[in-house]
């Protein structure tokens, strides 16, 4: 199946009750698939008048207690930023999907990873975090949907699947999980379903005029994010047990980097790959612990250098961190990665890092 369609099919099977979205290349298939298949199977699917309307519909539906999602691509996600900040402050569960394309601006319809900062560092205003999952195969495009909805409900937080146009368009085999939504969907006593006499009104709001109250809300959010950082980090380590050098890459770049490190291994270099699966929470702890025994880290991304900053933060100077990236929607090749590794290794052999 095509990545976008696998994601949409997984959403139906995960018990998603409503989808509000707007067409934009390269992810219109999500909306189209749900407009067809989703509606047939009882989902509320609305093509809204814009991404701005879409994200506010997500807010309304989530506030009313529904399992709800939207999807878009980079410029459309930019339009959603105010709504995402509101959703995060109101602590509403929902799934957001960004099928990234080249930017900035209207950019290109080719894939990119230029929205890492937007997804992980904010994008919208205020101190909030999204849980961010980065698939690197069509199988993961489907699998992460179930995980995302469950995480969203568990933490009352928006969850983003950060993917790209190539993964959205490529066709691969996919097997859908055994999953009964009824076993996973939680009761939501806080939702606005109509106030019975037995309780006071439920109010979904993000306005907290009293500074002390606003600070308290922020403390609560920060405590939640700290808990997420403790519990929900996910990553994959490939060929890393004896690694002297490490490539760090996510999503599509990780697939390419995997082939790249295999080429490097064939030349006799001991290189491994760390593939973060959650971009928030970031696998900083494992990176920090590995950094001591590494001679160098190469970060490979399809952008001007975004996740590389988090890698540098995590290793705290223990080992040199270098970057290889392509922009404009150009996908780097495994050979490029292998050559970048070659350059890094040659340089570092001349200046080895002393182990702690």
């Amino acid at each position, binding site marked *: 199946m095509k990545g976008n369609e696998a994601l949409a099919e997984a959403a139906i099977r995960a018990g998603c009750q409503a989808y509000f979205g707007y067409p934009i290349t390269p992810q219109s298939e999500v909306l189209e698939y749900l407009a067809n298949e989703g509606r047939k199977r009882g989902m509320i699917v609305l093509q809204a008048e814009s991404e701005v309307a879409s994200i*506010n*519909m997500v*807010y309304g539906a989530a506030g009313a207690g529904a399992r709800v999602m939207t999807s878009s691509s980079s410029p459309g996600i930019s339009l959603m930023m105010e709504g995402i900040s509101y959703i995060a402050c109101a602590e509403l569960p929902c799934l957001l999907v960004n099928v990234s394309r080249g930017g900035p601006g209207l950019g290109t319809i080719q894939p990119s990873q230029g929205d890492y900062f937007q997804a992980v560092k904010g994008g919208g205003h205020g101190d909030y975090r999204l849980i961010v999952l980065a698939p690197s195969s069509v199988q993961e495009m489907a699998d992460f949907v179930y995980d995302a909805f469950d995480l969203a409900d568990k933490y009352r937080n928006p969850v983003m699947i950060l993917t790209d146009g190539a993964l959205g368009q490529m066709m691969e085999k996919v097997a859908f999980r055994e999953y009964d939504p009824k076993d996973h969907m939680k009761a939501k006593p806080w939702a606005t379903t109509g106030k019975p006499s037995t309780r006071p009104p439920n109010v979904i709001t993000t306005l907290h005029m009293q500074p002390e109250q606003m600070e308290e809300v922020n403390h609560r959010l920060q405590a939640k994010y700290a808990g997420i950082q403790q519990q929900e980090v996910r990553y994959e380590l490939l060929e890393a047990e004896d690694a002297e050098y490490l490539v760090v890459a996510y999503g599509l770049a990780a697939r390419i980097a995997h082939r790249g490190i295999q080429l490097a291994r064939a030349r006799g270099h001991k290189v491994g790959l760390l593939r973060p699966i959650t971009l928030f929470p970031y696998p900083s702890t494992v990176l920090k612990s590995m950094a001591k025994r590494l001679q160098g880290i190469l970060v490979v991304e399809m952008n001007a250098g975004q996740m590389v900053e988090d890698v540098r933060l995590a290793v705290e100077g223990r080992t040199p961190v270098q970057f290889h990236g392509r922009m404009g929607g150009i996908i780097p090749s495994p050979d490029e990665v292998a050559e970048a590794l070659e350059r890094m290794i040659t340089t570092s052999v001349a200046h080895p890092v002393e182990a702690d």
Partner: protein
Amino acid sequence: MTQEIVEEMITPDVEGMECVYHRPETLLDARFHYCPGCGHSVVHRVLMEVIQELAITDKTVGVAPVGCSVFADRYMGIDMQGAAHGRASAVATAVKRILPDRYVFSYQGDGDLAAIGTAETIHTCNRGENILIIFINNAIYGMTGGQMAPTTLLGMKTSTTPAGRTLETGGHPLKITELIAQLPGVAYVTRQSVHNPNAVRQLKKALTKSFQYQKEIRGTCFVEVVSNCPSGWKMTPLQANAWLVENMFPLYPPGDLRTPQ
């Protein structure tokens, strides 16, 4: 004060009398932050009366806007969601789609509905979403300090049109209600006011009808309330209501613009 001679206060003997009006219980106890004489207060009160009289307190969800009435959830004893500026009708659309057997309304000011929210307003009505949209039109932005609204009259002085609105500075006042009334998905479009007792009675009827139409799944109900803004207009409440009749009604005449077939 209007009267010069002040007479002694009388405490009436109401022994044996029927109580024919009291504050509705659906209106929470909090003191209104609205300015003295503000139309928002009256509309809140009337809306809560209607919800109480129809016995739908437990079946109604309201969506509050950004503007002076951003605090509506402090006063309305029903489940509520606060929306981002301009987006109340999108939020209400989703709530109604998820909870079709609930009564859903959005409550919006002139900036929320006809400036930043114009797209959402038009498309919600174009889809004929089965909700009630309450539109408070006082031709000014009260909460942010009295700036021009889309519905501000030509020549009207506001903080961003200190010399009076001109075509060059702001274009024409936007008669959004007339635009909405042309959309086939809309069931009921009416313009009301609360400047005197009869107007309040008419508004109450209009709101009651709107909930009835929502029950009958007729389509969008759009109730504009031409209202005063004593602070923004820099008048007393009584002066503001008089000014409203003389200046707002010629451009925004009360009455039904569209009724269900």
